[in-house]
């Protein structure tokens, strides 16, 4: 059984309605979600679902239209700016365009709520800043200028800024949006690790379902015209919530693999025989070109043999059409003969 402190609720959202304009209808209402200490939560939803609006409301940039956002036992609306700065820190999509600002200087701005009138850092502040820079893996970049670093490194610096703000709760708005795949994975792993080790609650919005499914402790699903769903990734897949939130014409969510498939109407079935890695990649190539690889018999047959080198034989109604050395050739042959 878990200790009580581990499941302490950091953020509790009750009957929240969000939107930009009080006069107009709320973008979303009846939002009831929570984040626990040490929990890594991903907010997912299609474009235009209102993820940003929710993030901005939880960060305090927008006022809730109705309902309550509670940090522990205090409502967000009742906090002064300075108190709020010690409760929740943010990493936003705003691109920094400052020249001559070093990582150290940027991260130390995270100490703003704690420093005095002139913003002078104490030794304790400096130690915290240096530790945070180490923690996000920018140890070698302490005095580098941020405008000369990659997007991923800059994102890490912003995360370090959020860390030294020493808030129990961190909100990140699409922190992986502009990053390449390795950098995305790195950032997600880093955030997950930070939530575990420092017992902070971390909420981030993202488009990367794959990665969210693999890393999140909890997922919030948001879509226009649907009530918000909250749960662990696996439950949301099993309950078909993912399917219902993201599927549309031409796109379907495969509950077996937990990924999206491109769907192009009626596919011609192609029997695929063989095994191993070559089999797998031929199946992918077929899928990509709009065929449906099947195991049962059909008019078309591809035999994959892997004796040292790979060879692919294409049959139409049991008649050998061609034997190919690589998948590209095979795909050309099959397209020509259709």
């Amino acid at each position, binding site marked *: 059984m878990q200790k009580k402190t581990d499941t302490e609720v950091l953020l509790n959202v009750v009957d929240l309605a969000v939107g930009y304009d009080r006069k107009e209808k709320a973008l979303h209402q009846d939002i009831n979600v929570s984040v626990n200490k040490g929990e890594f939560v991903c907010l997912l939803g299609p474009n235009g679902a209102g993820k940003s609006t929710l993030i901005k409301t939880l*960060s*305090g*940039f927008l006022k809730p239209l109705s309902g309550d956002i509670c940090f522990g036992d205090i409502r967000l609306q009742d906090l002064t*700016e*300075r108190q*709020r*700065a*010690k409760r*929740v*820190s*943010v990493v*936003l999509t*705003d691109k*920094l*365009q*400052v*020249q*001559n*600002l*070093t990582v*150290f*200087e*940027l991260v130390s*701005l*995270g100490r*703003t*709520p704690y*420093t005095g*009138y*002139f*913003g*002078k850092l104490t030794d304790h502040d400096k130690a915290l800043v240096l530790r945070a820079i180490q923690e996000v893996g920018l140890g070698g970049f*302490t*005095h580098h200028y941020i*405008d000369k670093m990659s997007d991923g490194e800059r994102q890490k610096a912003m995360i370090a800024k959020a860390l030294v*703000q020493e808030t129990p709760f961190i909100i990140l708005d699409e922190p992986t949006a502009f990053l390449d795949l390795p950098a995305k994975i790195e950032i997600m792993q880093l955030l997950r690790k930070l939530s575990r080790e420092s017992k902070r609650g971390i909420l981030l919005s993202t488009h990367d379902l794959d990665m969210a499914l693999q890393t999140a402790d909890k997922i919030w699903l948001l879509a226009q015209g649907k009530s918000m769903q909250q749960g662990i990734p696996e439950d949301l897949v099993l309950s078909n919530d993912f399917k219902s939130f993201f599927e549309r014409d031409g796109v379907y969510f495969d509950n077996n693999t937990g990924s999206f498939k491109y769907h192009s109407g009626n596919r011609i079935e192609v029997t695929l025989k063989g095994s191993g890695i070559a089999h797998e990649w031929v199946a992918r190539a077929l899928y990509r070109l709009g065929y449906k690889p099947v195991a049962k018999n059909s008019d078309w047959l591809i035999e994959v043999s892997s004796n040292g080198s790979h060879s692919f034989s294409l049959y139409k109604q049991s008649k050998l059409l061609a034997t190919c050395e690589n998948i590209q050739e095979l795909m050309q042959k099959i397209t020509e003969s259709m």
Partner: protein
Amino acid sequence: MQGDEAKGRKKLAYMVLTIVLLLVFLANISLGSVYIPFSEIIKWMVGIELENEIWRNILLKSRLPQAITALLAGAGLAAGGLQMQTLFRNPLAGPSILGISSGAGLGVAIVVLLFGAIGGKAISHLGMFASLTIVMAAFIGSVFVLLMVLFLARKLKNNAMLLIVGIMVGYASSAIVGLLQFISSKDDIQAFVIWGLGSFNNVSWDKLSIFVPLVLVGLAGSLFLIKPLNVLLLGENYAANLGLNIKRSRLSILVVTGLLTATVTAFCGPIAFLGLAVPHLSKGVFKTADHSVLVPAVIIFGAVLALVCNVIARLPGFDGALPINSITSLIGAPIVVSVILKRRRLTQ
């Protein structure tokens, strides 16, 4: 460690800058259309009474107040320019971006041109009284615009909108000035044009007793804005999340910059480019975005550049003094161009 290296560099830059400031101040005292031997100047400076009364008068009544005016005007405009560039996150913002100097121009135009046209007597012929009236008019004009900007700043959430309002106020003022010029006499127009050329030598000791405290208050205010300015580097959203009261900080910045710009413009006329160019120069030399370094740096650097411009304007060979506005523009414009070119290289 690179951090220590950078610190050493900053210390050195401060030291060099301070020495240069002393040197150009000395140059301002010693150079001018009347030749005074350097030994006499040194004597005068250490407090020995000079026998030549004319020299004494020139030093005390002309060169010294002029040097003090230039020093404080440069410092004030540069501090204002830095604040505007950070607040609006725009490298081409300057202290005049809020339309404050246009407001001053409008005030002066109304007094000089309109009263001249109505009263039938050119105010430029009224001597000392006129010069103080012009200062008052400029100050009232700029404070009027400042109050308008502040009022709008409370209503507008967005800094970009405020910037546009400032520029529009500038256009409107220029348009009214143009209309006034259309109906005014030649003498009055010339008086207005001369005011518009800017000058550091119209501030007598009487006026300095108002000018100096006002600028010093503004400069002291700038030092208290270091923290909010640093936080604003990250943009308003991050700044708000870090606990900064955005509206209050913006208002304080506008009041301080407004006070500095209004004061300097009222007493010296509109001085172009100094406030825009000096922050860029300082950022280039100090290689930092940290305002605890930059605010003192632009204050010293602004003073240096204004004094340099003043010396150039009075170089022997020029009859009287060249218009200071031309000199600051001639020096400032290349700096601004180089900044744009450098930016372009960075983004490529």
